[in-house]
């Protein structure tokens, strides 16, 4: 089970959380103005990366708040978690190598 750091509550066990998929996917401001292709990209197409992923978690059995995390999908090690609304942080190569270890 993963140990996940909620930015508001600290380290808690994975069972307190719900994963909410890839982060930083922006809903088109005017859905009627985009093509079917662009709408499908927003709704369904995913990067599904093997390596660092930015993903959303919700501390559903804790504070109830959403936050984002950077994790390496090859090892499941977290690099960091950060609050909603912040841009995707740049991860230095040292931290990325540590997560891939």
């Amino acid at each position, binding site marked *: 089970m993963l140990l996940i750091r909620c930015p508001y509550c600290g380290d808690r066990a994975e069972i307190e959380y719900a994963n909410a998929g890839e982060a930083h996917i922006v809903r088109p401001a005017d859905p009627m103005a985009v093509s079917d292709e662009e709408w*499908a990209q927003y709704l369904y197409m995913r990067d599904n990366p*093997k390596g660092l992923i930015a993903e959303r978690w919700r501390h559903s059995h804790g504070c109830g708040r959403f936050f984002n995390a950077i994790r390496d999908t090859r090892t499941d090690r977290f690099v960091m978690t950060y609050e909603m609304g912040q841009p995707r942080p740049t991860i230095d190569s040292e931290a990325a190598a540590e997560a891939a270890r």
Partner: protein
Amino acid sequence: MQKFSALSLARQAIGGHLGWKPQWRSVAPKPAYDIVIVGGGGHGLGTAYYLARQHGLRNIAVIERGWLAGGNTARNTTIIRSNYLFDESSSYYEHSLKLWENLSQELNYNVMFSQRGCLMVAHTVHDVQSFKRHVHANRLNGIDNEWLTAEEAKEFCPPLNISPNIRYPVLGASLQRRAGTARHDAVAWGFARAASDLGVDIIENCEVTGIMRAPTGEVTGINTTRGDIRTGKIGVSVAGHSSVVLGMAGIRLPLQSNPLQALVSEPVKPAFPTIVMSNTIHAYISQSDKGEMVIGAGTDSYVSYTQRGGLHIPAHTLEAICELFPMFRRLRMLRSWGGITDNTPDRSPITAKTSIPGLYVNCGWGTGGFKATPGAANLFAWTIARNEPHPINAPFTIERFRDGVMIDEAAAAAVAH
């Protein structure tokens, strides 16, 4: 190819079994092939076999990053059934089930297909309504499926606990009698042996690192860890790594790769006559010929390529198993593992051409690809050979997500399946 028969077994027994030869040729990659299949699991090997057998193509390679059938082919719970709700899905899975029924004879290799039936247990009024709808839909499509009361289900599977006092009492069950299990390795080995005999090159320890394209867009070959291979057609059949391989050609897929865990108990004497699935409390169980109880757990919720997951997922399944089958409470678990499943939003697969000429994909089988092995391989081969889908797999495109033509087995089953 050495044919297996009672006579050949007897002859080899007299010779001390020293006369057996390798089941398939071990070869180094040639510089060019007509078709390269990426992924040496059951689906990929089967695709190569059907390309050679049914479409008369010979200059084919299957390349595999690790060893044959070491991915999800070796990691599933070997359940084979075709009782899916929608016409598109049930005809695809039924096509596969029909191929399973004759596969051992076709390949001259015992895949140990055992049609022991699959009991899907209903615990709520919603389950009852949903499963009865499945039964009716299947029967309208000529696929066997029947409704059993709780008592009839217990008669079919005596270990089942139908006491009204458990947390989610058994209200009934649907039964597909033609469903069953097969020996997972044998399927891959049987396809590999038959394909190799037809001239297909099977290349292990060969990882794809890039997809080569012409300036006009079509594929011209692949880069691998064992050198470049030129080819005009690439069939990608790599399950959990589909996003990674197609990403090399710039294609995004509607996939999320999640670990799915399974486990087996210590081997015991024959004690379990069928397959029981409970979607609602999430437990899948059958008994292997070795005697182990083979138990399927749920998917972990996050994207991962680790082939492992959290212990709370199988623990949850075992709680359900102990409630449904109290006689297994003292059974010890021997091994657990995970596989990387490629899940689509509607939980139906993709077997289709891509937007790039010469690039084909068979993916999105998620948590249920083993049952489809011969069917998917057969139709993927058709799609590659003719550059157009067979009517059965025509609805299973990538574009259905753009066009909104889902085959929503996710909603039909309400869980991973």
